[in-house]
């Protein structure tokens, strides 16, 4: 005859599970309650609720979002609800719930301990408000943990299926990584998205006002105008000192609307020789930064691929000193970008001390010493050249790994069939290397689109990439709202590429 679970003799072991369950439910309620208390105690929220401020008071939604976001309250609430559900499970003597509660309480103790230690290392006394709470939480959680451990070992409990056990272990192992990524990635990203909709200034404690998509509108608005060139005395197009054609400015009304020309497009075949298309934007520096970044990324990645492929094919053949050669190829990659930027700054000096000018003059490649880093037309090519130097050997290593998995037999049978070397390359090497090439390309493109170090060191504020522009707006101008909007746009751009990459690679789930 089956005995009802509650009738089994268990009360002799530890405190009753009903009590434990009730404690957990209480813990859940306290968690959710303290979140609500925390929100109502926040200074921004209080000023939003302060009726005496009248029409000037900040919006409540923005006040809450600015201070807490969505993720954290959601997480705390679901943890509270989880504690309540687990509490009911423990009271019902559900072994899975008891063990999960045990693990959860263990993590609670660990995080409370970390909090306490952090507070103490920051010099807060143990008995202070913010230290004593976590310290007591450690003790309470440890006591609860012991009780739950005993409750989970009561004889007569149903066995937990092995699969459930494995899954619980897996999630326990993932907790540290998930918590860290939540704190350093998810929450900051969320804050960036929220801030991008406001006029927040950096390091200001005032509740910002909601501005909607204004920043995005400023960043993304473009207009194209056809402009004629300015005519010189002889009727031809006037040119400035550096040889560039001088164009008429865009119509006055558009200037009054805030548009400025970011750059001119004078495409042969599309526009007449004395005409160009002015790409106008509300934020000219930003639009120019996008253009520069895209040019930089596409040119440097293309060159790196070609050069990397050449290097990989060379090093792939067998010769003495191949191991040493591979180590050599890693050297430019290992040099910090800041160091290589300063090194090239030195090598590109416009005096005779600049080795590049000297070698260029000696070999007749250039006629006179060039100011590589200060001449507008040479800045981007110089940056591309430096990036190509630094990353093509690494690209070559990625491709080399791809070359090594191509079975040798394919080449042997091709040779038996009398295929030429060129034919071998086109019909065997290239198709089989395609995955490696794709991975290397996507990887490098993502990297090049984020370029910061090189531009910051080489050009300061003279030429911006999208990353250095974000930095400029955020750190130097302290416009957190606007900088956040740029950050979100970069995120979308990079993540578009990243999704492609992940799709392409696929994830092996076994």
């Amino acid at each position: 005859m089956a005995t009802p679970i509650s009738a089994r003799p268990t009360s002799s072991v530890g405190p009753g599970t009903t009590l434990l369950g009730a404690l957990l439910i209480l813990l859940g309620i306290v968690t959710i309650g303290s979140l609500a208390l925390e929100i109502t105690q926040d200074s921004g929220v209080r000023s939003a609720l302060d009726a005496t401020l009248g029409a000037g008071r900040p919006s409540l939604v923005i006040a809450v979002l600015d201070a807490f976001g969505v993720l954290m309250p959601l997480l705390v609430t679901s943890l509270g609800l989880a504690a309540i559900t687990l509490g009911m499970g423990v009271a019902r003597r559900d072994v899975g719930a008891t063990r999960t509660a045990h693990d959860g309480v263990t993590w609670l103790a660990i995080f409370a301990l970390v909090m306490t230690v952090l507070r103490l290392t920051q010099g807060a006394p143990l008995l202070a408000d913010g230290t004593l709470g976590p310290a007591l939480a450690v003790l309470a959680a440890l006591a609860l943990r012991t009780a739950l451990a005993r409750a989970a070992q009561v004889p007569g409990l149903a066995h937990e299926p092995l699969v459930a056990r494995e899954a619980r272990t897996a999630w326990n192992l993932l907790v540290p990584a998930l918590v860290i990524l939540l704190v350093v990635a998810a929450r900051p990203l969320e804050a960036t998205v929220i801030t991008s909709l406001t006029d927040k200034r950096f390091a200001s404690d005032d509740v910002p006002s909601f501005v909607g998509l204004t920043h995005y509108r400023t960043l993304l608005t473009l207009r194209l105008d056809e402009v004629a060139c300015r005519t010189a005395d002889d009727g031809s197009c006037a040119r400035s000192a550096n040889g560039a054609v001088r164009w008429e400015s865009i119509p006055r009304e558009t200037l009054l609307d805030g548009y400025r020309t970011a750059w001119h497009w004078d495409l042969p075949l599309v526009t007449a020789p004395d005409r160009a298309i002015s790409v106008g934007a509300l934020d000219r520096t930003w639009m120019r930064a996008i253009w520069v970044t895209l040019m930089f990324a596409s040119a440097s990645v293309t060159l790196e691929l070609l050069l990397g492929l050449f290097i990989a094919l060379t090093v792939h053949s067998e010769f003495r000193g191949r191991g040493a050669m591979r180590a050599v190829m890693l050297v430019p990659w290992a040099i910090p970008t800041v160091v290589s930027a300063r090194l090239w700054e030195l090598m590109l000096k416009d005096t005779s001390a600049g080795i590049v000018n000297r070698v260029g003059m000696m070999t007749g490649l250039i006629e006179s010493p060039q100011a590589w880093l200060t001449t507008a037309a040479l800045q981007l090519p110089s940056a591309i050249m430096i990036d190509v130097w630094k990353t093509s050997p690494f690209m070559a290593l990625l491709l080399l790994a791809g070359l090594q998995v191509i079975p040798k037999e394919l080449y042997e049978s091709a040779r038996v069939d009398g295929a030429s070397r060129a034919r071998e390359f086109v019909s065997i090497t290239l198709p089989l290397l395609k995955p490696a090439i794709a991975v290397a390309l996507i990887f490098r493109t993502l990297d090049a689109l984020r370029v910061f170090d090189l531009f910051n060191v080489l050009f300061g504020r003279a030429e911006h990439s999208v990353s250095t522009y974000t930095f400029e707006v955020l750190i130097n101008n302290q416009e957190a709202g606007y900088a956040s909007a740029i950050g979100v746009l970069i995120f979308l751009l990079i993540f578009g590429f990243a999704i492609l990459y992940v799709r392409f690679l696929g994830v092996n789930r076994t």
Partner: protein
Amino acid sequence: MTRPTWRHALRRTPFYLVVALIAAYALLPFVWAISTSLKSENELFGPAMLLPSEPTVRHYVNVLSSGAFMRSLANSVLVSGGGVFVALTAGSFAAYALGRLRFRGKGAMLYAVLAMTMFPQISVLSGLYENVRDLGIYGTQAALIFSYPLFTLPFAAWVLTTFFRGLPREIEEAAVVDGATTAQIFGRILLPLTVPALVTTGLLTFIVSWNEYLFALSFTITNPNAQTVPVAIAQFTGVVEQQEPIAEIMAAAMIVTLPLVILVLLFQQRIAAGLTAGSVKG
């Protein structure tokens, strides 16, 4: 081995020339930096010569006796070490779960980790800036130790997951039969097998943290005492205040780069070791 006749050697000459050219392309700027760091002032502003005529280590002595530079070196070691520690501990736990255990939601987690390895740092700069300020660690080394897992952790977790997955299942099954717990399997059996992979991952995350510039610049811009080496080098104005101290910058650059280059040479062998360990049978 085939007989290396002179004819054979001659036929290979163009090939070796190409190899030499590639090596020169990769190494010459580096050689130039070392050479510059050894040159005397007179030579620096004269016509560029590949080798110093009268080498001097004075610039190295200057840089190494500069308190500010040594402090930035110590900061870099601390911050990179912290980054590696967090990445390897949290990363190896996560990797064990992702590489060896079965649970619902694993596919999504794998996608998340892989996508995170490409996370653009610049996008969260504004949010992270606020976080760091709220925690009261703005302008300290702690801000960097706190934020570096953003890029070290997903990378470490991903590399180690691939590695754990490559280990044969039989090892664990035998241990389970012998009555080992999950913790024992992880700590006593799998972790020792992963030491080569841990070393490789550790080295890579160390190099990436050591070279990191964006966060280092943003979070320590107001406090020179907390700056890491890349920030120090980018803003190096020299120990002796005169014209741009090229040789000293290069000496400082070489001091922070040489350890990396040496690590890379070691790392070459580690790759091989990691691959062999991955192919161990039972």
